[in-house]
């Protein structure tokens, strides 16, 4: 569990990016931070691995204050996926994936073997192992980004708009496979997006932020669509909230009809395994 307690981030010029945030992020689930730009969602994410240090309050991972761990050590234990993948252009795909294991001093040969296994797992042809990032498409690079974040098998994964730089079809594909992967891995995932559809599709719980770094609502997707806590949230969900809700429930129904998440993980059916796993609760 990741806990935010009274966390504020204030920059020297007086801007408040995150304002007195209390948040509990469930272990083994996908928690989505969503909101318009400038709402502090990325800052919140980055405070977990100390890319940004909080001005006030404490952030704890499983009860341990992140401030007590030196940043590089902390970061090697937390996977991170960034928007443009942020791959190292001068390293081959397998070496990109092996980055953190190598930083942790693991055997190079073993790390490369593991990297190839991971490529398989995220749906990348291992023939790409010796290629460079520039030789891959945007969607493929993003898969490498996910593989790299998973390489040292960290319990936590931070994802900052990982799928927003690719076209809608590739994005939908990546989202589906991401959910399938999460079904197997059950990582604690904090996922930042500005896209409410993506939030509803992926999130076990959704934290809606509003400009000024205030948490507007923190709840399940169903509850969010059902009962927006404020006008801001209602506006953010948009006029097609009803349609979105309809689509969301229809997908759930379809999965229940198919026999839930135990169905074949083809990944291309548009099914949302993580969503369906919670279908009963919702």
């Amino acid at each position, binding site marked *: 569990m990741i806990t935010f307690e009274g966390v504020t981030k204030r920059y020297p010029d007086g801007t408040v990016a995150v304002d007195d945030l209390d948040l509990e992020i469930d272990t083994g689930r996908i928690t989505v931070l969503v909101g318009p730009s400038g709402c502090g969602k990325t800052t919140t994410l980055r405070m977990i*691995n100390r*890319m940004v240090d909080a001005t006030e309050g404490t952030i704890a991972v499983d009860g341990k204050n992140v401030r007590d761990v030196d*940043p*590089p*050590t*902390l*970061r*090697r234990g937390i996977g*991170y996926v*960034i*928007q*443009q*993948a*942020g*791959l*190292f*252009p*001068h*390293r081959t795909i397998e070496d990109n994936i092996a*980055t*953190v294991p190598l*930083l942790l001093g693991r055997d190079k040969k073993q790390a490369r073997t593991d990297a190839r296994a991971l490529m398989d797992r995220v749906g990348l042809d291992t023939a790409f192992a010796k*290629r*460079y990032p*520039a*030789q*891959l498409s945007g969607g493929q690079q993003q898969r490498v980004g996910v593989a*790299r974040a998973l390489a040292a098998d960290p319990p936590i994964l*931070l994802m900052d708009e990982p799928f927003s730089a690719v076209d809608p079809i590739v994005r939908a594909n990546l989202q589906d496979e991401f959910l399938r992967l999460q079904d197997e891995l059950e990582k604690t995932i904090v996922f930042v997006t500005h896209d409410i559809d993506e939030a509803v599709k992926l999130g076990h719980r959704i934290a809606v932020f509003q400009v000024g770094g205030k948490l507007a609502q923190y709840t399940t997707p169903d509850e969010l669509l059902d009962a927006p806590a404020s006008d801001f949230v209602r506006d953010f969900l948009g006029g097609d909230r009803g349609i979105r809700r309809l689509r969301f429930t229809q997908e759930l129904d379809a999965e229940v009809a198919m026999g839930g998440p135990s169905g074949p993980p083809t990944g291309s059916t548009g099914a949302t395994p993580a969503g369906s796993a919670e279908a009963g609760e919702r």
Partner: protein
Amino acid sequence: MTPALAAELGGEPLFRWSYVRDNLDGPIWESLSEHLVLSFTPVLLGLLIALPLGLACARWTRLYPPVLAATSVLYAVPAIGLFVVFVAFTGLTYTTVIVPLSLYTLSVLVPSVVDGLRSVPEHVRQSAVAMGFGPLRRLVRVELPISLPVVMAGLRVATVANISLVSVGALIGIGGLGQLMITGMKWPGGNYPTPIIVAIVLIVALAVVADLVLLLVQRLLTPWQRAGRGARRAARRERAARLEEAR
């Protein structure tokens, strides 16, 4: 040969192979090896200074404009002037030529290092931080390797410029192949073009070879660059083919 040039040379042919034959092991070889030392040592020294200086300028951006101005002003000082000034401190030694030439390379190399570091995409830098690279490791394993193409481009310019500049040192008696030019100009019996031509040919050849060697080194050190270019070319070809099909 034009009649005017022939008259100028007083019957001396433009090129005498016998000069090359008689002097190859002596003055020609000696000036060539001196030229090598005088042109490469300053580039190495310059790189050693430009790296930390460039890193500092990239890190503290306010430092960069004054440093850039200083190196550019230095570059504007004529070489012969600097040589004469340094004779006062270091006498008629290699140092007198090497120090000014090292300073000259800075005007190319410092911007190269700064531009190289700035060529590292911000998302790559950020992801290196997020993966848990400490500052030094990030510099050595991520930022410097990615800067390499830009730095190497600067290094090639500095090297070629230096190979040509060394000759000026001949005016104070330390100028590698430039020395052969002085020999030709001050021949006791009048003009003697052969040593001058030998010097020019060797200087140009040296510059071309040095540039090619550096290019080769760069290719070997940055295989990822060519991979990227190849991929972009392939993508262009594919787009063109699809467009053709669509028609």
